[in-house]
């Protein structure tokens, strides 16, 4: 699914060159649930942006679903983001003037899907995250956990190849955070590939594999032996 070979990212900061990623190699197979960890400045956010096709590598190769992303143009990248990637952000990033339903419809608007199908699919996605009774609420009428669930519904709605979550529980209380992780685990169970950036070991414990970055390099990559289940904590 994700195949990254010798990937390097260098930022030009005035005269100084800063290497955010140094010859990183990473492979993520379908149906994996991976967390990327590391202190700030370790390169995990850069990795996330590159996997999410928001940024391009300086050197090396990144293939997503056998498509070499490194050689694509802006518009093609937008297309990939639209169809193959579902973003979930720490600060939810919902559009404040749109209702939950309209927010979820947005990726399908850019995919050129008709209004009727859009509404049906958005309703399905919201149902999946348990928000069928909140579809006409605007973000400021929802709790943090609910907003993140709208964001997950939005990320899911175009049936992407991977879900990319950047500190998805960072702005939530622990109970809402656990709920979100429960949804991720359910989605993963159903076959979704999830890559999640976090710096909280407790959150990473819900995933199946932990990749740790430091100074732009992967320093460890191991499977989680006893993945924590959210089930037993939730009533």
């Amino acid at each position, binding site marked *: 699914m994700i195949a990254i070979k010798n990937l390097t990212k260098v930022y030009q900061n005035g005269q100084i060159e800063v290497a955010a990623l140094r010859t990183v190699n990473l492979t993520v197979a379908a149906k994996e649930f991976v967390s990327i960890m590391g202190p700030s400045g370790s390169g995990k956010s850069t990795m996330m942006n590159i996997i999410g096709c928001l940024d391009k590598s300086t050197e090396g190769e990144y293939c997503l679903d056998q498509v070499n992303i490194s050689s694509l143009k802006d518009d093609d990248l937008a297309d990939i983001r*639209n169809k193959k990637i579902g973003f979930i952000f720490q600060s939810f990033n919902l559009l404040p003037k749109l209702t939950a339903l309209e927010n979820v419809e947005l990726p399908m608007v850019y995919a050129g899907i008709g209004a009727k199908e859009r509404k049906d699919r958005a309703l399905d996605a919201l149902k999946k995250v348990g928000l069928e009774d909140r579809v006409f609420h605007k973000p400021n009428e929802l709790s943090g956990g609910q907003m993140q669930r709208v964001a997950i519904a939005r990320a899911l709605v175009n049936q992407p190849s991977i879900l990319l979550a950047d500190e998805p529980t960072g702005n939530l209380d622990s109970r809402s955070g656990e709920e979100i992780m429960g949804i991720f685990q359910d989605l993963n169970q159903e076959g979704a590939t999830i890559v999640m950036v976090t710096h909280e070991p407790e959150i990473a414990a819900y995933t199946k594999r932990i990749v740790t970055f430091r100074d732009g390099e992967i320093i460890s990559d191991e499977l989680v032996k006893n993945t924590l289940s959210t089930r037993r904590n939730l009533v």
Partner: protein
Amino acid sequence: MNLVESVKSAFRSVFSNKMRSFLTMLGIIIGISSVIMITSIGQGSQAALTGEFDKLGVNMLTISLKDPSKATSRDQLIIEDMEIIKNHPQVTSVTPLYQGGNAQIQLRNPKEYRSSILIGVNESYKDISALNFIYGRFLIDTDVKMKSKVAIIDDGLAKVIFGYDDVIGQQIYVQVKQVKHPFTVIGVIKNPMGDFASLFPDQMPTMLYMPIGAVHDLYGTNRIQNFAVAIQDKDKINDTSLELTKMLEKKHRNENQYYVQSATESLDVVNKVLGYFTAFISFVAGISLLVGGIGVMNIMLVTVTERTREIGIRKSLGAKNKDIRIQFLIEAMILTIIGGLIGMALGYLGGLGIGSLMKIAPKVSFIVVSLTVTLSSMIGIIFGVYPANKAAKLDPIEALRYE
């Protein structure tokens, strides 16, 4: 993203910021409404003038000196030339016209005067002009023959002198070259400028019609500025002009000194002048449109900055640069097109208002309307492109990080 969705989302953001959108539109509204108002009044006056000329008929000629500044005293048209003109078989009536300036009319307070123009004509003037009588009558041939000291004044002047307008038989005092002459009022006409004149009573020139001989006596001259001639057959208008010119040249023993203008020609000239005038004022109003357009650009730039994060979110969800560009471009166009439509309505109403004040039916032509709509959407495009491009080019990562 298809166009319908873009338009919907643009409408949503324009209306979510009503006050700002309205203020931004205001520049466009003022610009468009001024252009519409001015052109509708301009075209209305042209139509009114054309109607006036039509009423008088198209078989009219005016004979005058081609260039009075170059004419010698031999070339001057004089009252005696009238006989030649009158004897032409095509001519049905003719009136001389002498305009005497620097005349002062004594007002109710004997120390106050108003400057006026004295127009010396004969009884035929009535046939070739559209005077609107309220009281009394125009000159008759005995008035002209006897050089009677009688005058036709307009109702505005009558009110200023006497305080009312039915002043037939009253004496007025006309001062020319320091000498005061009494004249008897025999007719009162409606001021041709109508109510418009009453708005500026001191600025409008007053015209008094008097027998040509009487005016000549006041000024001690026998010159004529022009002859107005009505002819029988309007198809012979060109031949008659030529023949009349020839006859006058023969009598004055000169060449190429006289100018014969037909009514349609003078209508063309007046229309041309009016057209230039309208175009010039419209141009000035157009500048306010430019200012309005800059206002739109300014607000769109602010909007782009404010919505940087939204742009980042949209891009992360798969919006292409062109989707973002179109969205902001359409927002700018919505502002200018709605502004244009409101401006058009207000301009039309303003035109009606001023038109009723001036007694002119304003005319809004299809061309002007379609031009304004095109113009306002063009302004939206021209002044929206730069902000829209700026939005489209934002880096999604930077935009998502923007607080």
